[in-house]
């Protein structure tokens, strides 16, 4: 038997530098890919605007009927809330739990697992790149909505800075919980009921449907102990509301806490899911 001498593997770049390189490369790819579909992305965003516009019209009408405000919130506040809502909602779009099933079924996961990088890194990096396109497309849309609905918005520089961080915090927070939920797909192809339940809770307790102060007290209390409001209400409120510096700092801290909780839950679920996948082959 002729044995050919083994060639050395290629050298590797340093870990931190190469991780940053991976994120930038993937984000760049996502931007390229999503700009190819800019029209589709725009239609998608237009579709998404329908939801807050309905809420906005309803609350503006109620405010007008009640002498200009609802529980102290003016029509201008509602306009600002729901216009910022459109961006936060877009930032909240992540690699959703149900897509894990597709990833397993179509063999993409197997391809990802033979690479020396956790698929979660790819999801975070790719959707982060997509967000860059989303933000670029959102700006003209927000200007159009502002011209129509006349929002009241007068943020301080600190609030703008916190908002800029908080929308990415919201993105990471939701990524962690959606990915954790997605692990259900390793055991069942009927996870839809649980995903729907989660979405309903999110709709009610996040501030997506209405600003949280308009919800009953007990709902507000419950929402304090759940991650939803930190991915939705807090980022909006950091820009639109009148939060103190301490409240802004506390909001970011809660975001970080929930991101870490979500990451820990994901890690546990992932270990178990991969053990199951390795045992049965998906």
């Amino acid at each position, binding site marked *: 038997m002729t*044995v050919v*001498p083994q*060639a050395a*593997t290629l050298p*590797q770049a340093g870990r931190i530098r190469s991780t940053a390189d991976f994120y930038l490369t993937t984000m760049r*790819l996502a931007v*390229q890919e999503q700009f190819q579909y800019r029209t589709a992305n725009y239609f998608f965003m237009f579709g998404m605007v329908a939801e807050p516009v309905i809420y906005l019209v309803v609350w503006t009408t109620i405010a007008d009927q009640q002498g200009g405000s609802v529980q102290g919130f003016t029509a201008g506040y509602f306009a600002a809330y729901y216009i910022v809502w459109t961006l936060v909602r877009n930032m909240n779009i992540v690699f959703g739990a149900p897509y894990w099933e597709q990833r397993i079924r179509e063999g993409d996961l*197997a391809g990802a697992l033979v*690479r020396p990088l956790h698929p979660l890194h790819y999801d975070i990096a790719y959707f982060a790149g997509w967000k860059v396109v989303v933000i670029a497309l959102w700006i003209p849309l927000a200007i159009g909505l502002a011209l129509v609905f006349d929002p009241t918005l007068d943020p301080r520089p600190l609030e703008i800075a916190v908002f800029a961080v908080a929308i990415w915090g919201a993105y990471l927070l939701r990524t962690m919980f959606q990915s954790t939920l997605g692990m259900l797909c390793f055991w069942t192809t009927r996870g839809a009921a649980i995903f729907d339940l989660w979405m309903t809770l999110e709709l009610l307790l996040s501030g997506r449907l209405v600003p949280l102060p308009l919800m009953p007290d007990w709902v507000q209390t419950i929402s304090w102990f759940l991650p939803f409001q930190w991915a939705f209400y807090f980022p909006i409120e950091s820009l639109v509301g009148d939060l103190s510096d301490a409240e802004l700092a506390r909001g970011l801290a809660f975001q970080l806490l929930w991101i870490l909780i979500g990451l820990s839950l994901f890690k546990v679920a992932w270990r178990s899911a991969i053990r199951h996948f390795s045992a049965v*082959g998906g």
Partner: protein
Amino acid sequence: MEHAVHISGLEKIFMVPEREAGLVAATKSLVRRQSREVRAVDGISFDIAPGEVVGFLGPNGAGKTTTLKMLSGLLYPTGGEARILGHAPSKREKAFLRRITLVMGNRNQLQWDLPALDSYELNRAIYRIPRADFTPMRDDLIELLDVGDLVRKPVRQLSLGERMKVEIVGALLHRPQVLFLDEPTIGLDVTMQKRIRSFVATYNERHGATVLLTSHYMADVQALCKRVVVIHHGRILFDGPLTGLADQFAAYKTIGVALADGHVDLDRYGEVLHRDGDWVTLRVPKAETSQLTARLLSEQSVLDLRIEDTPIEDVIELVFAQARSE
């Protein structure tokens, strides 16, 4: 020297749920689920030396892909041991994943909407390849597979064969030392198959990579593999040189003979497989080949004569048929 691939008593057992068709069976299964044990890989053992190219053959469902998945860390073995370049694949260590590649002929791992060059960039980042090493390696692979024009088109616009070629470039950018190739030429035309075969051979020579190849095309195996491992029902039926496969399993040889009188009855020499003008092809028991050839030469006016081993496709068929009947 340490083996590149070492497998000892490797097994994989799946529990497969099953039930009869119909409403009654469906209702029963709610209360009492039935499942069956399937031994996909049943205690196989073999070693592969560094730089060796081995054909891994077997019919559908024989356990080939399951074995490859265990060797690449996708499946956890039920029993036995596997070591690839000293790593236990099931641990899926990054150092291990950087040294192997798994190419599945029916899977696409490139970005569908972007040119392959962009996906190569992503692989560079994932495998942490310094650009100074990446660019020459990429260009070299592109040249070897002659895909310079293809890598600039969105992957979705490529034909199956073109996609496979650019896929292979992407899978080798990190210069893996062990290649698991699962049907890399499936569905490709003959020219494309040849191109991929010669590419794998060149890569093996140039980089000393170890290759474990499954293919239903015997031409792939004949062109690339001196050694084959044949698996059936999860068990190894044969492990040795490709030429030895015919010696062990083919009980016959074929004698092609051109006679001055092509109409002579040759049934007494062997089974007449084919007549084409004066050329007659006979199948004869391997042990009697010399004796029958001598008789033919002495008793008939032979113009030309050729003795051939049974074609490898037929040998493989014989191997599987034999295994089925046992």
